[in-house]
């Protein structure tokens, strides 16, 4: 038998590449050439926390040229280094979005809503997938009892509305963080904004909630907002940013929302400040507290911007942390 050598492993591959180009679709196939399928599988994944079912339904992703100040307090080279370490492309940032649904057995709760169905066409299906994936997973939007919003950025609230500005979850009570509501609905705060980005965040929040006729229920951090679902203040990314801890039986998962953006950058380097963090120092303090807790308690984390299905355990690693993705379980 030929033994394994680098030559056998890689020279073989090169020879094949050449051979393939010489014999593309030739031969005597008994059937038509197998067409490429070209579309992804439905993006949903389900796991249990105690007796509760968590359904992760991805909204998709956004890919863009890495801005020079994507991480405001480190050089772009360092960011590219972290991307390379994760085998991600240089000078390119891909941010996934994954809202979830929690079924407690008595309540069906959606946590955050994605970039909105209107965005599906705009992005040629790259994002705006949440409502479609939720449906494919067997969950009817009409059955959703509660929508919990973590904070008011567009990728979390825009999916509250259909493309024609109707309620995307028509029978649901919409819960919003009280601190977030107070801040973004305050005209004085809005008038203080100096950057186009922040003006845009205010305008978009008002667009969405005005379409809901501002019919929302503010909720306080530190409260149980549904059976087994506790709100925890995790401010910094936005003033009222709130995470949830979902618990059933002996199990818990921290639905962190945006305590970190992509883990390859901000879990490994909790001191890095994402361009999106409104109060970066506070966001970092929150991040370190949350991740110390996750590592110490061995609590699962569900991360909105983690690669799908976005659920992991956290370990300390060097000066930061590392996420250990939960193995994909084929049965509940």
């Amino acid at each position, binding site marked *: *038998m*030929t*033994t*394994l050598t680098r030559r*056998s492993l*890689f020279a*073989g*591959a090169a*020879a*094949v*590449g050449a*051979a*393939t180009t010489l014999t593309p679709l030739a031969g005597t*196939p008994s059937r038509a*050439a197998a067409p*490429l*399928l*070209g*579309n*992804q599988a*439905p*993006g949903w*994944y389900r796991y249990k926390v105690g007796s509760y*079912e968590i359904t992760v339904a*991805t909204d998709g*992703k956004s890919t863009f040229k890495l801005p020079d100040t994507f991480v405001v307090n480190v050089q772009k080279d360092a960011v590219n280094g972290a991307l390379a370490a994760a*085998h991600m492309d240089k000078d390119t940032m891909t941010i*996934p979005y994954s809202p979830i649904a929690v*079924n*407690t*057995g*008595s*309540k069906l709760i959606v946590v955050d809503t994605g970039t909105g169905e209107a965005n599906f066409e705009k992005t040629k299906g790259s994002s705006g*997938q949440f409502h479609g994936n939720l449906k494919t*997973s067997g969950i*009817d939007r*009409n*059955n959703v*009892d509660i929508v919990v919003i973590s904070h008011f950025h567009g990728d979390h609230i825009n999916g509250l509305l259909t493309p024609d500005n109707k309620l995307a979850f028509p029978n649901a009570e919409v819960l919003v963080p009280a601190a977030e509501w107070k801040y973004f609905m305050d005209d004085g705060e809005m008038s203080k904004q100096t950057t186009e980005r922040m003006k845009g965040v205010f305008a978009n929040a008002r667009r969405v909630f005005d379409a809901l006729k501002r019919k929302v229920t503010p909720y306080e951090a530190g409260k*149980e907002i549904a*059976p*087994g679902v*506790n709100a*925890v*203040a995790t401010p910094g990314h936005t003033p009222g940013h709130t995470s949830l*801890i979902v*618990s*059933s*039986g002996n199990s818990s998962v*921290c639905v962190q929302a945006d305590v970190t953006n992509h883990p390859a950058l901000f879990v490994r380097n909790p001191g890095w400040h994402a361009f999106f963090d409104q109060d970066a120092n506070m966001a970092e303090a929150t991040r370190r507290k949350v991740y110390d*807790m996750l590592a110490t*308690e*061995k609590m699962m984390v569900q991360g909105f911007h983690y690669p799908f299905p976005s659920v992991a355990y956290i370990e300390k690693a060097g000066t930061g942390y590392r996420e250990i993705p*939960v*193995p*994909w*379980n*084929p*049965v*509940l």
Partner: protein
Amino acid sequence: MQFTRRSALLGTAAVAAAGGFSPLSISSGHAQAASNGITGVYRYKFGDGEIVQLLDGARTFPMPDTFVANVPKDQALAAFESLYMPKGQVTITFSPLIVKSGGKTIAIDTGNGLGAFEATKGAVGNTRANMAAAGIDPKSVDIVLISHFHGDHIGGLKNADGTQAYPNAEIKVPAAELAFWSDDSNQSKANGPNKGNFANVKKVFDGLKTTPYDANKEVAPGITSVATPGHTPGHMSFVIASGSKRLVVQGDITNHPAVFMRNPGWHLMFDNEAALAETTRRKFYDMAMAEKMPVIGYHFPFPSAGYVEKDGTGYRLIQVHALT
């Protein structure tokens, strides 16, 4: 309220208590546990072709005493426990794949089979269901490539009733593997866990027409066989090349990567020739690392692809698993 460990934990405790008072029977209108199966399909473009990774399932079982043959059980248990697996238990996942290349549909390994689906109540044997979810008809498969003859790789060649699962496919098997398992005299020489496989190999291949293949051959368009012996005598891996891109489908060079890549000297009880398997493993990962070549692993956590990096005295898998 600020986030403190106390607030998080108090909350949890309070919730657990509250949970006891409000079980699943509460009056509420709509919520019903949506217990459909899990979709185990992950698809990506590779050069001009396509890879469709399929999840056959996972088995969880108490760790056998000699699961890692050359390491004390305590140490092996600790390694698995550090992966957040239930104490004393081992979970192994199985993941075959479909490659679309050069106008052909090629299956690489077949999972535990539909027979095992019933026997395990759906824990394994999900390959066919996931193929259906991916829109792939088994009748459309042109070539089935088998890496080696263990039951979790060949079990899906037949349906539960013994008929052919891929009726129109050429079934290609490693020549060295075929020779080994066809020779009854090898049964006594095989290590313990491998002895039982002889009967299963006979059963699966009975009535099936196969084409033996050798190492370093183009066994399907763009796919080359590479000898990686040790786990079994004729164990093969596959290099898939398309355009300038290459990846390698390792088969069972390691079992769970977080344990056996970090500890390449650990000998899995299923390795027929453990020392040879270790030599193969070290060579293979040194090469994959040097080439930054992505590796697909049959027993890697789904969707089963990643890059190899040095980690202390061993290796680490950086999984590439972004869905979108």
